């Protein structure tokens, strides 16, 4: 055989092996589900013949959480007959989870089931990217949307075509609320009153909060009383607690210039400007808290695994009550939804239910990341055992104290609205704008988002 022929023959052989190597494992994915045999909990790359292969994805906050989801995937793979699961952790520092997901949907390569933030549900549903599973849910014995917190379900069942709550765009993966993470050593050193005790006595309000923050700030120029990160969640709580909010009642117009919203923002601005008790707005507040340089750090349950590594004594307390008589907390949530282009909607619906079962959610909660999305005393009791923090009840109190469910905009564009809001609030908190300047223009700018 000549060199040339040998080269050609070998090249073709290698090419053939590569193509067949690439194609062969994908074969069972399109197998009909009829006649499915026992599900094999083997590795995801080689599902049992006859199984329906489903890919699912969620955004873990850290490697430990990704490992828990992978373990859950293996367990459900063994449990769900005729379905083989492949879990894909999504999101990284360089590739936004949602942006990558949207690109894959456009390309037709997105997973069958995926998690999306609560604020994105409308954008996905209006464009037909996620499946309305109301019919599948209605045909499922024992399934009830009432098993989940009503706030998220209000948004997840809204049908933009009928204007009624007769759709179902997915099921909430978990919920969370804000608390204040406390550096108890720093608070004790400053001689500040104990926020947990104040909360128990019903005296944990804005004035008490300022007193504690100021006391800690007095410890040194590089010690801060309070810290929060620069996004809509933290500043939204101050507005909510003052009786304001982002939108009008039917979420079709800006409410950022209402007296109540402005009162909340003005109070927060004082923390950064007049009182100077807070980590500078826009700086990541978690590093100084973990370094022992911040007394109170506002964040959700998802921050708990990281905070568990600190070396000082810490605990959590609910947010202080504002003029409206409540803490103005958010009920954060995200939902598992089904890709509208999935070839296996019924199997995907089974997976959706399995992923939101109490036992599955308990595994995630045990890690400390989030709170089960099912309303049940059993789930709450189990959650309270996942310590530290000792005062897990603060999260539950946050849920039960008039928490406002985060939600999508069915009219207008949430990303455009939040872009305008974030920039203007940042200008306010850093002192580049006065509250009067903010009030004069904010809704003129923000209302344009409702025209999109």
């Amino acid at each position, binding site marked *: 055989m000549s060199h040339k022929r040998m080269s050609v023959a070998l090249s073709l052989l290698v090419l053939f092996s590569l193509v067949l190597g690439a*194609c062969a494992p994908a074969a069972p994915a399109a197998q009909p589900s009829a006649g499915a045999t026992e599900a094999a909990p083997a590795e995801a790359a080689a599902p049992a013949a006859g199984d329906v292969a489903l890919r699912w994805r969620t955004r873990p906050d850290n490697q430990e959480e990704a490992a828990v989801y992978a373990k859950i995937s293996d367990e459900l793979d063994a449990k769900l007959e005729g379905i083989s699961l492949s879990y894909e952790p999504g999101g990284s*520092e360089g590739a936004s989870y949602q942006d990558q997901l949207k690109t894959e949907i456009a390309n037709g390569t997105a997973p069958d089931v995926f998690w999306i933030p609560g604020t994105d549900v409308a954008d996905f549903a209006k464009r037909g990217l996620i499946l309305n599973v109301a019919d599948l849910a209605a045909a499922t014995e024992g399934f009830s949307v009432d098993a989940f917190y009503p706030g998220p379900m209000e948004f997840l069942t809204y049908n933009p075509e009928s204007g009624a709550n007769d759709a179902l765009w997915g099921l909430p993966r978990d919920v969370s609320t804000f608390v204040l993470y406390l550096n108890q050593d720093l608070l004790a050193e400053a001689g500040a009153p104990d926020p947990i005790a104040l909360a128990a006595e019903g005296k944990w309000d804005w004035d008490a909060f300022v007193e504690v923050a100021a006391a800690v700030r007095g410890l040194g120029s590089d010690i801060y009383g309070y810290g929060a990160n*620069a996004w809509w969640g933290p500043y939204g709580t101050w507005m909510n607690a003052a009786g304001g909010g982002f939108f009008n009642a039917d979420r079709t117009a800006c409410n950022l210039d209402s007296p109540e919203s402005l009162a909340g923002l003005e109070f927060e601005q004082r923390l950064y400007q007049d009182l100077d008790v807070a980590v500078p707005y826009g700086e990541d507040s978690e590093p100084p808290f973990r370094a022992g340089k911040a007394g109170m750090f506002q964040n959700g349950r998802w921050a708990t695994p990281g905070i568990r590594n600190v070396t000082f004594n810490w605990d959590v307390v609910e947010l202080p009550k504002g003029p409206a008589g409540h803490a103005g907390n958010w009920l954060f949530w995200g939902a598992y939804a089904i890709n509208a282009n999935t070839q296996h909607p019924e199997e995907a619906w089974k997976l959706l239910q399995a992923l939101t079962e109490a036992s599955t959610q308990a595994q995630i909660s045990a890690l400390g990341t989030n709170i089960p999305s099912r309303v049940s005393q059993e789930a709450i009791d189990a959650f309270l055992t996942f310590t530290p923090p000792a005062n897990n009840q603060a999260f539950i109190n946050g849920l039960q104290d008039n928490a406002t469910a985060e939600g999508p905009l069915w009219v207008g564009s949430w990303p455009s609205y939040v872009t305008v809001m974030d920039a203007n609030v940042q200008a306010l908190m850093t002192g580049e704008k006065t509250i009067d300047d903010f009030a004069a223009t904010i809704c003129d700018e923000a209302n344009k988002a409702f025209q999109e």
Partner: protein
Amino acid sequence: MTAVAQPMQQPARGAEGWLTVLVVWHVIVVLGAAAGLWLLWMGQAALPEWVRWFSIGALALMAFGSIGAVIFIPRRDHRGRTLSLMVNYIGFLICTVALLQWIGAFTGFDELADRFPRGLPFLGVAFVGYLVYAFADRYETMPRRQRAVQRVGGFIMLAGLLLAVAAIIAWEAVPAFVLERLQPVILASLAGVALFGLMCWAMWRRPAAQAMHVNNARQETIEGYLFLSPNLLGFLLFLAGPLLLSLYTSFTNWDGFGTRDFVGLANYAKLLNLTLAPLADARQPANQVIDMRIYDELWRFSFFGGSYVIGAADKLFWIALRNTFLFGLLVVPLAVLPALGLAAILNSKLPGMKFFRAVYFIPSVAAVVGVALIWQWMYNATVGWINYGILRAVELLNSALGMALVAPQPRWLSSSDTALIAIVVMVAWQVLGFNTILFLAGMQNIPRVLYEAATVDGAGAWRQFVNLTLPLLGPTTVFVLSTTIISAFQIFEPIFIMTNPAGGPNNSTLSAVLYLYQNGFQRFSQGYASAIAWLLFLIIFVVTLVQYRRQGNTSYEL
């Protein structure tokens, strides 16, 4: 290369039958392409829009090419061979890609990546076989031994590759894979691959070439285009095609998923829509003089005693454009001038220069995301290393000199005053090494004899640098400036990673490409994002053109 325009001398035996077959084949291709065009034009085939337009273009090309082939092949005109080869080559490629797509080869490559390591040891065996095979060349003078060694090498190679294939392929899934792929569309594309390939081979053969009166020059031309074709097709498919698609998209309201509705110049009109209104006094609210349902206040200024406000329909676009220009103005000198100085130092014959060349180049090869995360940590105003360093330095000064200075603690990334500068410093630091290497290469291309002559003429080091090095570095300088400016105008990753929210604080780091990205991928406005991309392209094009025009006035001939 000099082509000799001489007809090939060999007789064209056995070609006539194939040429007749080729004519019939091209008639079939014309009919098939016409039918396909009719279906596509009438919208009968449910295809994505870009696939539809690509198919129309490809089918039209094949139809017209085949008509030409049908006309010229019977006349034995060489143009018939060229057209036939072009049609069959393109048909072969399209059918191959379609076949790979339909059998799932492209989406299966992730799986292949997972399974491929299993075959690596056997591929090592195959490589050993290749070495044995190649070793046989040493026995050119002993043909029997050479063939024997080649056989052994070939056998080892074959065995290694077969074992590698066996290890890589999921054999348990192959039967299902094969059975499932027995679909008409896959079989049709497989037949297409075979037929187009066969016709290519038939026309490529020497007898057919002779019958078509192809001379060496024409043959070399076709071979040249054949070698060029991977790059040319890649350019057309992956650069020119998407560029044209994005141009078309910029005239639509496409959200990335649904249909593209043509909106003409509406996207451009919104981007460029500005209004100017006089103010009664400098503090008068803008909403009293401009229509805030359309415009937002962009900028207010005083001119000859009067105050004015400029409103923009898309304020963020103009802010992004301003930030991008400002970024370019700051980063280009910082990334170019120190690079020139460094290159001059590294070009000297001092000991250790090779080490320092490598050191300065390291940031350029480091991943942007990793570098940005490190700088973000360093810039942290409360626990970052830079502010910590400032604090310690001031404390040292105070204790040493008995002063009571207060250490400044700049909020590098959270203040509108410093955020853009902080990113400029990081980017300049990263680009510096690459520009230094380019200048260094340029300097080392300047003949030493010129410096020796200058030394004889009494020129010192500075005069040599100013009057000799700088002018002769003109082309390098233009290249460095062009690439630095272009990359500055396309700044995205560091801002996306280091600022929170991206483009903050208060939009002070929002760049044009970041704004494009936010519109295209976060706000479902691909049409609008495409319009931003084309406006940015025009700006970069004009700036680069001006630079290259200026190059003509500054370059020197050696």
